């Protein structure tokens, strides 16, 4: 019985209800109801007369398209003040307000009635199921509960979306309707005017309703591919603050302010699969995932991007408000500056009101709260190589020097890991190779005027220092000894004479002839 009902609940979620079915279910569900509920229903069954709804209480549900069988039209007795949340959209046929589009309202309300009945039955199912838990294996119970909750969420979503479509038509309600509007801001627009004897029941029902709403909120508000507008409207509805005014008191043509909850903003996933509950960041990812749940999701219609409903609020611009109190982006701030899209809201909230938990791995200094910001930073981190002593980095050398030229006391920071030999290696080795070949030839000539031993030992002595400097020693060798010997070819060392001239200024001629002698002495 329960399983059957669960299955039927599924089919309810997927297809529109036939009134016949609904009435059947309602009648079949009667035995499952709790005493109180059954009493109520019986009352309703017994009293098919449609009572006048107090407009103050719930004008939204005045319009109700009664099904022919009319068993679903459960009048609400304003006098005894039974505020059954599942009855609220009933019984308003006579109290239609003719000022707005009646037929649309009728359609919406009838649909809502059906949905509410389904919802009621499902909740009863759950209640019933709980009492039967002991008699069932756990897995089966869990499965059934899953099915039920899935159906529940879809029903609630539809309920909310439809109710939301009714909202704009309530703009011109009387000011007296404001308390009910406030109550309308709660889930499903459930009005709960104080009831004398039925306060407990009301609260029970209320808690049921709230439970349902709480179940649905975290699971999925976008389980089906609802439109952005629907989301906004749902979130708008869910917010405990008084947002109902915004939708109605804005003069036409100005923007509409929407405010998301902190949990909503920080939620890692916003799209959820209705079947398995897996979360996704993007709607497109969800649609791809749904392909795995059956062939009906592989149709182009199911895969297509959902078209935004153009019927509701086509001309209004939506702007968003940050929920953080005191923020300049909060709608209550004196100098309120709205944010343009939901993504802006998310980024703003994370950057401004959350702590920065991501650290750049390169500089280990900069912290970010948004991963995209971190990635942008890492692209450019460490690019500035030129560093001044004051700590400022520059991307170009001329910028660094311009900075140093401006200020007294700033100097370029010299990198500590400078390896002199490494720098000297490649360029000077080439020179060194030339040098050694020349030295090879000239050393021989040199050997004729100076004993070979001296020349060779000199090379060894200088060669002891370091391998790279072996290439340098011929150069130094050259500046010491080659000045006096003009016939040796010296193109790479044409600076040697000049080197000498500034080494010992003023006596370069003198040195040219005797330089050879003195340097020989030093070598020995």
């Amino acid at each position, binding site marked *: 019985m329960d399983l059957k009902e669960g299955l039927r609940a599924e089919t309810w979620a997927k297809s529109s209800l036939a009134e016949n079915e609904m009435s059947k279910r309602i009648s079949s569900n009667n035995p499952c109801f709790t005493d109180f509920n059954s009493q109520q229903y019986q009352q309703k069954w017994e009293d098919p007369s449609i009572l006048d709804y107090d407009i103050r209480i719930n004008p939204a549900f005045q319009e109700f398209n009664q099904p022919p069988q009319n068993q679903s039209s459960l009048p609400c007795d304003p006098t005894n003040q039974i505020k059954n949340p599942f009855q609220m959209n009933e019984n308003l046929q006579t109290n239609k307000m003719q000022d707005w589009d009646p037929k649309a309202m009728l359609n919406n309300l009838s649909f809502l009635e059906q949905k509410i009945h389904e919802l009621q039955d499902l909740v009863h199912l759950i209640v019933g199921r709980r009492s039967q838990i002991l008699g069932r294996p756990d897995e089966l119970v869990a499965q059934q509960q899953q099915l039920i909750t899935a159906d529940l969420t879809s029903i609630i979503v539809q309920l909310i979306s439809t109710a939301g479509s009714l909202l704009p038509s309530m703009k011109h309600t009387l000011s007296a309707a404001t308390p009910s509007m406030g109550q309308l801001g709660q889930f499903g627009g459930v009005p709960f005017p104080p009831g004398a004897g039925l306060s407990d029941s009301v609260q029970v029902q209320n808690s049921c309703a709230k439970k349902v709403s709480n179940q649905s909120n975290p699971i999925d508000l976008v389980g089906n591919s609802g439109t952005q507008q629907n989301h906004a409207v749902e979130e708008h509805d869910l917010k405990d603050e008084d947002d109902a005014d915004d939708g109605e008191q804005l003069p036409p043509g100005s923007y509409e302010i929407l405010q998301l909850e902190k949990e909503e903003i920080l939620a890692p996933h916003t799209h959820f699969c209705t079947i398995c509950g897996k979360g996704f960041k993007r709607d497109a990812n969800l649609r791809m995932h749904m392909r795995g749940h059956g062939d009906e999701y592989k149709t182009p219609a199911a895969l297509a991007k959902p078209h935004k409903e153009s019927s509701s609020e086509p001309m209004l611009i939506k702007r968003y408000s940050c929920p953080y109190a005191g923020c300049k982006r909060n709608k209550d701030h004196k100098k309120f500056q709205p944010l343009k899209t939901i993504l802006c809201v998310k980024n703003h909230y994370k950057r401004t009101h959350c702590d920065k938990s991501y650290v750049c791995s390169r500089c280990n200094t900069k912290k970010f709260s948004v991963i995209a910001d971190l990635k942008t930073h890492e692209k450019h981190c460490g690019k500035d190589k030129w560093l001044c002593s004051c700590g400022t980095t520059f991307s170009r*050398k*001329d910028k660094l*020097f311009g900075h*140093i*030229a401006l200020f007294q*006391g*700033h*100097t*370029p920071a*010299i*990198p*500590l890991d*400078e390896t*002199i*030999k490494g*720098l*000297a290696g490649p360029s*000077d080795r080439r020179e060194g190779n030339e040098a050694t070949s020349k030295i090879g030839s000239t050393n021989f000539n040199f050997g004729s005027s100076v004993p070979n031993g001296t020349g060779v030992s000199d090379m060894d002595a200088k060669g002891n*220092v370091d391998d790279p*400097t072996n290439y*340098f020693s011929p*150069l*130094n060798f050259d*500046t010491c000894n080659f000045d006096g010997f003009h016939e040796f070819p010296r193109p790479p060392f044409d*600076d040697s004479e*000049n*080197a000498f001239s*500034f*080494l*010992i200024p003023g006596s370069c*001629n*003198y040195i040219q*002839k005797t330089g050879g002698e*003195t340097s020989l002495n*030093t070598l020995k």
Partner: protein
Amino acid sequence: MEAKRKKNSNPFDFLSEEIIFNILDHLNNDPFARKSFSLTCRNFYSIESRHRKILKPLCAETLSRTSARYPFITQLDLSLCPRANDDALSIVSSSPWKLTLRSINLSRSRLFTKVGLSSLAVNCRFLTEIDLSNGTEMGDAAAAAIAEAKNLERLWLARCKLITDLGIGRIAACCRKLKLLCLKWCIRVTDLGVELVALKCQEIRTLDLSYLPITEKCLPPVVKLQYLEDLVLEGCHGIDDDGLASLEYSCKSLKALNLSKCQNISHVGLSSLIKGADYLQQLILAYSFWVSADLSKCLHNFPMLQSIKFEDCPVARSGIKAIGNWHGSLKELSLSKCSGVTDEELSFVVQSHKELRKLDITCCHKITYASINSITKSCTSLTSLRMECCKLVSWEAFVLIGQQCQYLEELDITENEVNDEGLKSISRCSKLSSLKLGICSNITDEGLTHVGSTCSTLKELDLYRFVTFHLCA
């Protein structure tokens, strides 16, 4: 009693230390005299050790003992110590010299690193002069170590090829008192480094930017230096006429300019660089300038111009002749290796510049007796004459030289046709201190004897390939 009194009174006690220092100053040219003075007695030993200011040790290992003996050294020349390493420098910086040392020459050592330099710069607070030429392994870290010597005024970094703009920038920003900076062959220093030097070191008097890859971009702050006197731009191929023409200012205080080997600069660039430099005294334009009439006209208006060197430049005769039309009176002229110089022009020039002290006509192959005739007639106060390889000059000319140029101190007549007659005449130049007679095939002992007997101040004698040599006299 008398003997006792005589014993007690030492006449040298009347001489104060100042007086003895004065005496010792006169002995500066004679190292043996100082040595014998110091060995006389303990008193003189201590006086001499307190007096000595300049030291040129032969090896770096004895520095610690030397610093104990001579604690007041201001000038330390370690160019004969190639093994001077970080230990030696730390000894120097921890010895009594750290308070007195002002100048150090490390141009021949390569074993020291930035550690030694840093200890030197930090401890020797009065260090004003460092010669770090040939430091081919010194990089920017060593430059940063040098920059710690805040009182530095003269710095040579020639051939320090690894120093870059960063190191030079550090030195420029820290050593604000720099007056002399030599960056010859520091090929990694570019416009940026030179600009920073010119902006930060406003006291610079001498700047050597030879062979740097610089362009005219660095010149505007350089020419704005108020005290720049000596600018060497040898081998700066990045500077050309157009760049120099774009200079808005020119250096007014410039006294000496060297533009040798700048292939892209002609007289146009030169004139834009030196316009307004009224105090210009010395120009070295070797290897690159076409000595033309235009060039000579550019140099027309510098009354203070005293020295000009056109080594190995292609010359036009009109150009040389135009030199004779200059207003000022040249003291030094070099036309070395300018093979286009002829008698007529040279004679005209020397007749206009009678105050010539130094003349270099090495390898001017066309010069003959007539030029020497004019030279000796006009420039009697010549102190230096170099005429190596002027083969067309006959032997009679050298007789004239000896007769007329009594103030000659330096004479280079290598590879000439001088003979003993000429040498005999030359030996009359009693102030001769340097005489080069290489490859002179016509001289013999006889001439040399004359020289040897009368030239008492001769210090240098070059007899390369002298043919006959009998040791006598």
